């Protein structure tokens, strides 16, 4: 399939074309640029929901049950599930699809034309997502899915990348991992729009729930207090960009038993409510503006690096750096100068 066929197929609802488009984009085929250019105007309609949390907390099981619930509500669901890929062998075992089983009729989910599931490898990248996740989200968006669920790797460390692609970020925890220390860890309180305490059947879920609510309310109180202080600047600094992202929204904490489907309706409600809030409050424009800016800068960066490689004597400068004849800052200035001079020439 060439780029044109892929775009035409994708926009007319051909799954095969969508599947191919993802492959081209994921592997950075030359066709991918052309494809992204054409589908971009068709994007921006879908609700992108990210799920993050440690391995084994039940993200894939939640994705499966949420998919079933959103289908019941008449929505088409696209899913991107990311698993870790080895930076050494390049291999990956993509096991999230295994969990795609509903409560009603497990058969339906795998062959439902209103569901598209794609497994991706992180290919050794840190941050919880695959490098091209953002573009793949756009492909699913252009294809016409109403909800796009993105399951992150769940490596445990701060997987803050998800907030850069998702309109709604769901942080999933479970009783065992949920002592005070875990809750306080690595940005967890900042990134969630919704918190889930899954495996509520195991006991100890209330403790995590209480801690989460307590920590979240502390955050809100301190932001409020600071904003009442006279030094407006201080308040701005303390409340931070993260809280700005969900201003006026108090993240709910929801208990679930994912494999039995308990709490799923409530979670789906909260996800939909958050989207409505984002739209009504205008926060969604703010998040999406940030996203588009970041995507744009990333593309520009790649293009500029390519120019540097093609149009400058960067190799000579590296040799000089090694010999101590120049320093990186002077070398960089020189390269920028060269790019500006040579970029226009064929």
């Amino acid at each position: 399939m060439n780029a044109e066929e892929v775009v035409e197929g994708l926009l007319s609802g051909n799954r095969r074309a969508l599947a191919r488009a993802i492959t081209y984009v994921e592997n950075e085929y030359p066709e991918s640029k052309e494809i992204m250019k054409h589908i971009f105007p068709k994007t921006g309609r879908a609700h992108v929901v990210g799920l993050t949390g440690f391995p084994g907390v039940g993200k894939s099981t939640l994705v499966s049950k949420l998919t079933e619930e959103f289908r019941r509500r008449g929505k088409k669901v696209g899913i991107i599930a990311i698993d870790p890929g080895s930076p050494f062998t390049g291999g990956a075992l993509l096991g999230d699809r295994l969990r795609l089983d509903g409560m009603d009729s497990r058969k339906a989910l795998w062959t439902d034309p209103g569901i598209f599931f794609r497994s991706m490898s992180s290919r050794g990248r840190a941050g919880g997502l695959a490098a091209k996740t953002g573009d793949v989200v756009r492909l699913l968006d252009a294809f016409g899915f109403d909800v796009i669920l993105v399951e992150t790797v769940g490596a445990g460390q701060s997987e803050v990348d998800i907030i850069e692609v998702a309109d709604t970020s769901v942080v999933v925890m479970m009783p065992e991992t949920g002592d005070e220390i875990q809750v306080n860890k690595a940005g967890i309180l900042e990134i969630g729009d919704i918190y889930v305490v899954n495996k509520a059947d195991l006991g100890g879920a209330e403790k995590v729930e209480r801690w989460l609510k307590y920590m979240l309310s502390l955050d809100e109180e301190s932001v409020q207090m600071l904003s009442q202080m006279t030094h407006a600047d201080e308040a701005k600094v303390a409340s931070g960009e993260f809280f700005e992202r969900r201003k006026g929204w108090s993240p709910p904490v929801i208990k679930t038993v994912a494999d039995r489907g308990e709490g799923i309706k409530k979670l789906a409600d909260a996800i939909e409510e958050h989207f409505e809030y984002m739209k009504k409050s205008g926060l969604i424009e703010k998040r999406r503006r940030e996203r588009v800016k970041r995507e744009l800068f990333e593309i520009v960066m790649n293009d500029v690096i390519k120019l540097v490689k093609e149009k400058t004597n960067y190799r000579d400068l590296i040799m000089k750096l090694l010999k101590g004849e120049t320093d990186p800052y002077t070398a960089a200035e020189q390269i920028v100068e060269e790019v500006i001079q040579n970029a226009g020439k064929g």
Partner: protein
Amino acid sequence: MEKKIRVLVAKVGLDGHDRGAKVLARFLRDSGFEVIYTGLHRTPQEVAMAAVDEDVDVVGISLHSGAHLALVPKVVNYIREYGGNPDEMLILVGGVIPTDDIVELKKMGVDEVFIPGTPISEIVEFIKKKLPEKRKKK
């Protein structure tokens, strides 16, 4: 960037023998492939749609139930029905398959059959050797 080889490892029908499929999935991962394992008891339709949506290069079907002659052609046909092209993919079958049936399966579009006792490194070699040939043909 070199394209990663994506492999679907599937168990079809009423067959609980998943040891071979799991061992294979692990080994393929450690050999640098991206492997999607379906889990047990999938229907031919489910396997076929997964193969198309995941845009895999290799479809591996593991069968120990004796129903291979009925199930394998169904998977191949459904892949075509869902818009995929099984001729572009390597179709591999493994598990308990009598010798006579291997010939039959190959007539149905299967590229190779691997029976119990096959060293898995042989399967890896086969994929690495045959996939480029298959891609060239299309």
